[in-house]
């Protein structure tokens, strides 16, 4: 046991402050940047993982091909993780997302492959099939998610139980109405949502639309920076120094354009490119044909979802209320917030996001299978938690969850490149999850004084914290005992014996 001895601790603290002093200019620069240091730390960790795997894999990891695939594989989990952040922030959990995804994917497959073409007699490959399917799927997702949310919020059943039930029910329903069959194929436009190719059609934006998207996003970033500065100026609030503003803008735009550049560095597969050249009358140069793929549709969908959910979470009352409920449910209710409705809406949002992910996954597979989305709930929750969402409620960001999903997928993808078997992958990802959460909790305890009234709620949700505090208390007890201020067990027994001697005792 590491009982700290004062003589050891003192010089240690000294070096710490010296290091702190050395870092002081860097820290103050960081502060004037006003960026989320936690997010920055995660980006650093991600960079480390990427560079590490790149070295170990001999340069394969950071190839355009691998990064493009990585982005597509992360997308479906990342889409759901944005909603899971809001659920966990409001002190709930949704264990049913994987089963909901399977159920919704199955339903959407039935709509486009059976009901519209056969039962309604419209035939296959109708131009509106994909959008009707998608809209119905999202609506159904919101409905079943909202149903679970209703039971949680108005029925007062803990979300863990409700969604655990949901996990079984939705999965069971798939088998009920599909009888274990695989539904395929998907309609060809719908397939584009998965980022795959059908003939010469590719589920990606292509070169110039990708660049356009990148430039539009950069302009949006700059516009948001300027308008926020102007608003703060109007109230004469302090604003970031101009160099900091410029740096933040430049780095954000650099990341956006970098992503586009990587996506455009990934060429179409050779046979698709050849077919494309044939159709468009392009002569194939001797070195082979390089047609950029561009940003994949699943990634585009993820981007849109991220923007929408971030907007909901940070710029709308709904989001403010979700965080307030997570911070202090009683205070939220006393402030006149409709807590139940807000909770129900988070679950409805989660359901519709599960539907979007279901569309991406079925489109990518070009089929709906009965085990679609199995264990996805664990990946989604892990992504949110690695991304800094705290189970004690009130803390977590949407961009963090996206990063969390990318970190997890990077680990898996990197280990696949290194030919690590899948059980070992699970072990590594599991350990990373625990370490990430442990680290986040350490931050939590630093946050405020250990006022018992204020930390009581956190303890209830956080056995780890309780244990840590109890350990502190045990140490105090031990030192008191050593100094004879506190009766140790032997002393106590002596007291009891003395009492029995003096007064006689019925106890043996």
């Amino acid at each position: 046991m590491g009982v700290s001895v004062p003589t050891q601790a003192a010089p240690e603290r000294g070096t710490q402050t010296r290091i702190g002093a050395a870092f002081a200019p860097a820290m103050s620069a960081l502060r004037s940047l006003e960026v989320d240091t936690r997010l920055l730390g995660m980006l650093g960790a991600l960079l480390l993982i990427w560079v590490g795997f790149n070295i170990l894999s001999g340069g394969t990891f950071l190839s355009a091909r691998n990064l493009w695939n990585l982005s597509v594989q992360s997308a479906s989990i990342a889409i759901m993780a944005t909603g899971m952040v809001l659920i966990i922030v409001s002190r709930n959990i949704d264990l049913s997302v994987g089963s909901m995804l399977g159920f919704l994917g199955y339903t959407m497959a039935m709509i486009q492959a059976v009901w519209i073409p056969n039962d309604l007699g419209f035939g296959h490959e109708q131009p509106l099939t994909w959008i009707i399917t998608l809209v119905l799927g999202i609506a159904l997702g919101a409905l079943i998610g909202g149903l679970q949310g209703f039971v949680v919020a108005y029925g007062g059943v803990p979300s863990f139980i409700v969604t655990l039930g949901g996990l079984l029910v939705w999965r069971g329903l798939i088998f009920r109405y599909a009888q274990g069959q695989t539904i395929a194929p998907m309609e060809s436009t719908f397939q584009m949502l998965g980022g795959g190719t059908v003939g010469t059609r590719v589920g990606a934006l292509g070169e110039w639309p990708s660049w356009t998207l990148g430039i539009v996003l950069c302009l949006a970033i700059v516009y948001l920076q300027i308008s926020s500065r102007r608003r703060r100026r109007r109230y004469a609030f302090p604003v970031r120094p101009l160099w900091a503003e410029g740096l933040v803008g430049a780095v954000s735009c650099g990341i956006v354009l970098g992503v586009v550049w990587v996506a455009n560095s990934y060429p179409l597969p050779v046979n698709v490119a050849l077919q494309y050249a044939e159709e468009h009358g392009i002569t194939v140069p001797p070195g082979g044909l390089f047609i950029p793929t561009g940003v994949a549709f699943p990634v585009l969908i993820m981007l849109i979802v991220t923007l929408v959910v971030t907007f909901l979470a940070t710029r709308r009352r709904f989001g403010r209320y979700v965080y307030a409920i997570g911070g202090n449910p009683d205070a939220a209710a006393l402030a006149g917030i409709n807590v139940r409705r807000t909770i129900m809406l988070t679950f409805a949002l989660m359901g519709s996001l599960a539907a979007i992910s279901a569309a991406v996954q079925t489109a990518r597979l070009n089929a709906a299978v009965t085990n679609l989305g199995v264990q996805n709930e664990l990946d989604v929750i892990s992504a949110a938690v690695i991304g800094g969402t705290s189970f004690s409620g009130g803390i977590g960001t949407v961009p963090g969850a996206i990063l969390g999903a990318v970190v997890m997928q990077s680990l898996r993808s990197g280990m696949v490149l290194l030919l690590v078997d899948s059980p070992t992958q699970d072990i590594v990802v599991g350990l990373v999850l625990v370490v990430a959460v442990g680290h986040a909790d350490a931050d939590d305890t630093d946050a405020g004084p250990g006022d018992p009234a204020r930390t009581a709620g956190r303890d209830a949700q956080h056995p780890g914290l309780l244990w840590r505090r109890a350990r502190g208390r045990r140490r105090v007890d031990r030192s008191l005992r050593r100094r004879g201020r506190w009766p140790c067990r032997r002393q106590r027994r002596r007291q009891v014996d003395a009492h029995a001697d003096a007064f006689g005792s019925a106890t043996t």
Partner: protein
Amino acid sequence: MRTLSGARPPDSGQIAINSQPVTIGNPRDAKALGIETIYQTLALADNLDAPANVFLGREVTAATTLDDAAMESATRKVIGRLNPNFKNFKAPVLRLSGGQRQAVAIARAIHFNARVLIMDEPTAALGPAETAQVHTLIRQLKSEGIGIFLVSHDIHDVFDLSERISVMYHGKLVGTVNKNDVTTDEVLGMIILGKPPTKLTQQDLAELHG
């Protein structure tokens, strides 16, 4: 108190404001009637910053999105009145001191032009300097014509700040008296023995000091 602030629906009886009977079903109703409450627990969302807490449930919006700058500006003004040293408008209130948290809770109550203010043990968690600050504030609000219910267990606070005193004993109202008509001993008698001043005997008072 909880009924008046809308946290709990009434079992019986009625509430009148300016002799008009009103119904209060939830906290929103109470706030619409100008009844603001400062809870003993402060009822703050610890993870949010001061402006978000002050405007919780009554956010200022510009074209349906939250106008954080406007809310921060208003919060700076109202908290500046209470505590000029308050600077941390961006930090989650979890990181603030007890007095600063109290300032946020009070700011929330007085910013919206309260007519009736319910203060549940407003100084219970504060040091002497901060307590004095709150006392000054209470007198100032009183002079502005705001009706204040002050819930307190500190007999000196009660005599310093109030006009009328009601004593509750085991959930029942013992009596309501004017401050100038009674002595501290009589009020203590009401508190400890649960008897209104008219029923207190010399013997009771002697026992109190016994």
